[in-house]
């Protein structure tokens, strides 16, 4: 008698749990991402369904500061795309996940997006490591893989990867030479140069070239121009104490300081230099967070590379101008402190343009067709015309231009045809 009583209660409890779970489960059934096992609904009205673009970004973790910009850029792109009628007549949804700045997580996310959630397209994450891991998945699954911020150009051989970090496959040679050309163009080229390089794969590539290769990079290219390299410091990522580096820079006192910097390395170094009353004569920062560098002491004259800035001639095109405006508003809304549309947002935008151009060009969501189309047709983008070249691992030369902080603003100064009218490199 007792036993059966207990049994009833057990069953009642289990049933309650099952109901709760089932209820939760039904909620999930409404999520847009579960398209796999609901054939009845999807096949009924396919054109009503949005095209799902899957991807991840480093929304948390050490890459998060810059990834936040890519999130705003991507969201704005999709918004505008849908407002203009979508893609193949369908709306587009961007399903972006957080890879926590870690490659293995990114790989798992792309695996899940492609094989479990059956997204239609993918777009690469932010950051070299996560892109590399995600690209391996895209390659296995045969997905077209546009990506915007991978810095190790030499390493990517997947036939259907489409880089929109437009620096050329030999970026270690081409990128520093654009900087050096700008210095020569200023009419006051340096006699001595000092290097302060982050121990980050991308900055090391530009500084020294690919590992196990004697191609060289910024350091050897400077020597080729007959400049005297008076300083070479490598510092670990996330260095917080800049005083020792600053004193060595001041001690070497180069005519030009080439900083292989990420994020806030630049402002940190400038603050530390200012604290010992040293102002660099000329200085360059590889990939700085633009806002903090503008507010740093003695930042005037600091140079960097870019492919797009929010001023003429880039904003001459009314569409570009409207993108710039809308981006600023959306970034401010997202709480991002520096709201100008520049190199990071532009490369993100370009990746979206490449993806959508491929789909529109191929007229289908078939990955092979999209890949073929992109390999065989140039794409018009916000940073110019891109023609992916399989002979250069799908790169297409270095489109970088030089910008400089002048009067508290970033302006493009070199080459003249891309520069803000009237602006020239100042040293």
């Amino acid at each position: 008698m007792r036993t059966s009583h207990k049994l009833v209660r057990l069953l009642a409890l289990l049933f309650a749990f099952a109901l709760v779970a089932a209820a939760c489960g039904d909620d999930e059934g409404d999520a847009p991402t579960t398209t796999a096992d609901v054939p009845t609904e999807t096949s009924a009205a396919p054109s009503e369904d949005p095209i799902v673009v899957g991807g991840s970004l480093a929304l948390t973790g050490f890459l998060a500061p810059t990834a936040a910009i890519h999130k705003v850029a991507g969201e704005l792109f999709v918004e505008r795309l849908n407002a203009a009628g979508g893609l193949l007549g369908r709306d587009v949804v961007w399903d972006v996940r957080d890879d926590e700045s870690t490659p293995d997580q990114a790989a798992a996310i792309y695996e899940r997006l492609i094989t479990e959630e059956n997204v239609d397209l993918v777009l690469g994450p932010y950051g070299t490591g996560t892109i590399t891991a995600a690209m391996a998945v895209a390659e296995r699954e045969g997905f077209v893989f546009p990506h915007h911020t991978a810095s190790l150009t030499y390493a990517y051989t997947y036939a259907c990867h489409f880089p929109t970090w437009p620096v050329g496959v030999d970026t270690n040679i081409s990128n520093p030479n654009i900087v050096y050309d700008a210095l020569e163009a200023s009419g006051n080229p340096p006699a001595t140069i000092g290097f302060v390089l982050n121990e980050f794969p991308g900055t090391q590539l530009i500084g020294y070239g690919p590992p196990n290769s004697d191609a060289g990079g910024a350091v050897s290219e400077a020597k080729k121009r007959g400049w005297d390299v008076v300083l070479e410091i490598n510092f670990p990522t996330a260095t917080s104490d800049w005083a020792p580096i600053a004193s060595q820079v001041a001690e070497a006192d180069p005519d030009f300081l080439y900083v292989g910097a990420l994020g806030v390395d630049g402002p940190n170094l400038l603050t530390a230099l200012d604290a010992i009353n040293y102002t660099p004569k000329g200085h360059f920062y590889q990939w700085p967070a633009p806002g903090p560098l503008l507010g740093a002491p003695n930042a005037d004259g600091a140079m960097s590379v870019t492919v797009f800035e929010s001023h003429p001639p880039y904003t001459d095109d009314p569409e570009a101008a409207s993108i710039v405006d809308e981006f600023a508003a959306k970034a401010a809304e997202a709480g991002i402190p520096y709201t100008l549309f520049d190199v990071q947002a532009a490369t993100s935008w370009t990746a979206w343009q490449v993806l959508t151009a491929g789909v529109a060009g191929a007229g289908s969501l078939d990955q092979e067709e999209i890949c073929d189309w992109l390999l065989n047709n140039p794409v018009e983008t916000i940073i110019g015309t891109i023609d992916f070249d399989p002979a250069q691992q799908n790169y297409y030369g270095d489109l970088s231009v030089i910008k400089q902080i002048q009067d508290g603003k970033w302006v493009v100064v070199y080459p003249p045809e891309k520069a803000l009218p009237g602006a020239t490199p100042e040293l």
Partner: protein
Amino acid sequence: MKSRRRALTGFAVAFLILLAVPHLAERMDWPGFYLTFMFTAFFWITQSSSWNMLTGYSGYFSFGQGAWFGVGVYTTAVLAGKQGWSFLAALPLAGFTALIVGLLLGLVVFRLRSLGGEIFALTTLAVAFVLAAIARIFAAIDGGRGAFMTSVPLPEFLGEFRPAMYRMTLVIMMLTLVTAYLIYESRLGWGLFAIRDDEQVARGLGVPTFRYKMAALGANAFFGGLMGGVWALQIGFVTVEDVFSIRVPLFVILMSVLGGTRHWMGPVVGSLIIFTIVDRFNSAGFENFNQVFIGSLLILLVLAVREGIYLRIRERWVATASLFGLIIAASVIFNSSSMVWKFLWALLGILLMALIPDRAWQKLALRRRPTPSESREDRETVDA
């Protein structure tokens, strides 16, 4: 011993069943992610179980899992990724290199009687930082350049990338679990438990504490490193920042504490629950809440279920098994989403059930009040 033979048979059966999964997946045309999901779970189960061999068994709290993992990752990254060794030749060295580093640490710290538990914990935290600094400084290891693992060829008999990862992680996980079990059911294990409770007394009763602690630390480092060696493939591009981050030690602690550190099965259960939840959070796009959730769960669990949930669900195993089955069945009927979601609902059901305090559970009057020792009695005869 009968129970041991039964358990080992259980392990063998589980292994064979799991080994068949890739074939099944191909047959049934499962989403490729299911295998990835499973081998990622194997990864976490291995990491947390190996951590538990040291910390759960001997009571020496370690933040060092990231170090063993990192040494393993870098061993294969350097040997297979950079030097062009065949992957399977490099892999065992991942375990052994971590073992050597672990034993060196043990030689230093366990020789010092004055070292308290919290100081041991911080020393292990420092190890990861020191190793990261070494990897940065020496170009032969990393030198700030990272190492690509994406073009490392895998032997053909392992199959495509996914099944190959699955098979390798499966073998390592089974080795780890069998070791964890055997230690648990042996003199070594009981010696370690004695050390955990009172190291001085244990020594006085004849437990060779130094040797035992070294064994526990060695096992921890070896399996953590071995799995790290395989994991380098999943990472694809190995960098110091990523590998020596606090993610691995953090999750390993979280998983083991949730599941319970007293029993070898605790970390297994904890890993499955945490990993599945985190994965589904990510899948649902709750990235903003993911960390809030993890943090809250950690706090809640430490306050609510001190022994970990495994011992609780085992005392309530009939209910647990029925609940698991019921939820799976219900979600098959009511909800057509992916299998991982179904698995999650079932796990959440179990988690919720385990959170019911003992007293309230007894009020539900499902069984007579068990004496506390009952659970301990069958702990010794538990099988896989």
